[in-house]
């Protein structure tokens, strides 16, 4: 079971496949995937040094995240992320230095810019799906353009919020695309514990299409996502996309997968690596080789280090941050608490 596929694991085009994403687009996608992997490494290193908060690497699932988000138009469409979609956020307009600022605990510096159509990362699993549906429905009610892409994991799909959100989306034919990234693990819990059913088939019960796609195949994910976005844009309602992929790394920087990964699982997963696969394909297309790769990687390294440096120069969190965004018009008691702390913090 692999889901819909365009490329085989070695990067060969399947017979008769005609990718919708051209070589240029695919190279752009590859670049986002490489950036993602480089960010993972940098963030993990920063965490090990005690300078970064908890981080959840994207490693292994880059094609799912990048391929789906490339179907969006950042000037009208929205993303409702979970916490493992870094390259999608950056492609959508979130400045890399602000992402860094967030993990560095820089407070307000990490704020999403006003013009970026992005919801904040969500830690409470599946809750964001409900927000995404409301947002999509609200856009449609106001005849505003825009499709909302909402991400969740296969673990999160067991939550009641998943059901309520999908069901409402179906009823309202909301312009939302649910991207369920089935990376086989929810921390230490394997896919088999999450459900006895096929996850993409749940969509039928909500009255909209569900698709299972090889989440390690950028071209396939892009195509499926583009079709879903087109449907949503045309007023035809939601789609559920299940991306079959692998979490090639720890759950987050506090996790140790050696405690629970079965022998050989990681090696098997790495054999299906989405970057390797796409590189092989693009090499065969004649648009990628070690030289290009080295140049792109150097550029990415520079971009990442530059953003990190910018972030490090951003203002630190301040005690005021505890109070300033709780209410527009804070209760008197909170004002007094603020004064109490600032008097103290100023000491």
């Amino acid at each position, binding site marked *: 079971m692999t889901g819909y596929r365009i490329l085989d694991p070695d990067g060969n085009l399947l017979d008769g496949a005609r990718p919708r994403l051209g070589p240029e687009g695919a190279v752009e996608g590859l670049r986002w995937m490489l950036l993602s992997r480089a960010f993972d490494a940098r963030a993990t290193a920063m965490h090990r040094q005690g300078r970064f908060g908890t981080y959840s690497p994207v490693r292994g699932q880059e094609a799912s995240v990048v391929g789906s988000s490339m179907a969006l138009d950042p000037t009208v469409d929205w993303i409702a992320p979970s916490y493992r979609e870094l390259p999608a956020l950056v492609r959508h307009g979130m400045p890399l230095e602000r992402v860094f600022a967030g993990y560095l605990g820089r407070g307000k510096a990490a704020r*999403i810019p006003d013009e970026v159509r992005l919801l*904040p990362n969500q830690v409470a699993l599946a809750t964001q799906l409900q927000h995404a*549906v*409301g947002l*999509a*429905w609200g856009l449609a009610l106001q005849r505003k353009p825009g499709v909302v892409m909402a991400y969740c994991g296969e673990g999160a799909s067991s939550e009641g919020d998943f059901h309520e959100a999908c*069901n*409402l989306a179906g009823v309202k034919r909301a312009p939302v695309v649910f991207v369920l990234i089935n990376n086989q693990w929810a921390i230490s819990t394997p896919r088999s514990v999450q459900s006895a059913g096929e996850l993409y088939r749940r969509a039928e019960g909500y009255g909209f299409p569900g698709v299972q796609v090889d989440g390690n195949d950028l071209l396939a994910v892009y195509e499926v996502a583009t079709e879903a976005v087109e449907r949503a844009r045309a007023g035809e309602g939601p789609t559920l996309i299940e991306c079959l992929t692998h979490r090639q790394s720890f759950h987050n920087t506090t996790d140790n997968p050696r405690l629970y990964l079965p022998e050989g699982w990681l090696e098997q997963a790495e054999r299906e690596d989405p970057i390797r696969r796409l590189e092989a394909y693009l090499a065969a297309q004649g648009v990628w080789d070690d030289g290009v790769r080295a140049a792109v990687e150097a550029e990415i390294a520079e971009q990442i280090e530059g953003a990190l440096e910018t972030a490090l120069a951003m203002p630190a969190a301040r005690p005021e941050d505890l109070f300033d965004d709780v209410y527009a018009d804070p*209760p008197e008691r909170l004002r007094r608490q603020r004064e109490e702390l600032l008097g103290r913090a100023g000491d």
Partner: protein
Amino acid sequence: MAPLTMIEAIRDALVHEMERDERVMVLGLDVGRLGGVFRATHGLLERFGPERVVDMPLAEGAIIGSSLGLALSGLVPVPEIQFLGFTHQAFHQIGPQLARYRFRSRGRYHCQVTIRAPFGGGVRTPEFHPDAIEAQFVQTPGIKVVCPATPADARGLLLSAIRDPDPVLFIEPQRLYRRGREEVPEGDATVPFGRLRIARPGSDLTLIAWSAAVELCLRAAERLEEDGISAAVLDLRTLVPLDVAGLVAEVARTGRAVVVHEAPLSAGFGAEIAATLQEECFYSLDAPVARVAAWDSPYPTGPLEAWYLPTLERVVEAARRTAAR
């Protein structure tokens, strides 16, 4: 305006805001065709159409969660939860989501959402329908908690709630929905948050309440007058923001206070009032702040509620005891 019942005042506020601001919409269970199980939204569907008056699938989490998203899209949703007890099904979407979205997004987003929900006892409803769980929402910073006790306040506070850029939990005492009528100011007559109402002046003792318990306290004050005890009655109107200054000024004057609520005693909002008063006017208190509340057991069904809820006798007795100390 002709005198209105509380339910009429609420409906009038909804109509007024929907006329005034086309972003305002109502959504919930049975709010459309039926006009709500208490008729709070009666006639709205016909007037504003099915895009602004929305019957929802039966899922409180989706009602609140999608309201959050609707607010992000630029609308001003006024979701109704059929009974406050069923906010529990959406608890994870209220305190940790709706209330915190401004904070989480570092001010990038805010949620102009007013959740309306009836609650309170005395009308023999089934389980969960009367549960008074308001204190649980005071522990979730970012949301305001508003609890009118009269038709005029219901209208004025609801206008303020809908216009507030932040989420508001607006809880309505079902027992008082049709209890009586009063003159209700028209138009844009908002009632501000964080200012308590002196429902009845008095000099010996202060009774403190909100929602339906205000009416109980007024009856108790009358009874106490017969004993020669002059009891003031304060209606808090909003629990968040809490009018600490107003409370302190009033109680410092009498030196004696009794808080009355329909929720169980332990960790009810009465505890916050008593704690605040002893902190803020310790030296003016001549007696401990007394609490009269429901017992620490679940809300019962059937005839038991008469023994469960605070009664006139219990309030009067606590007041007498407090006045005598």
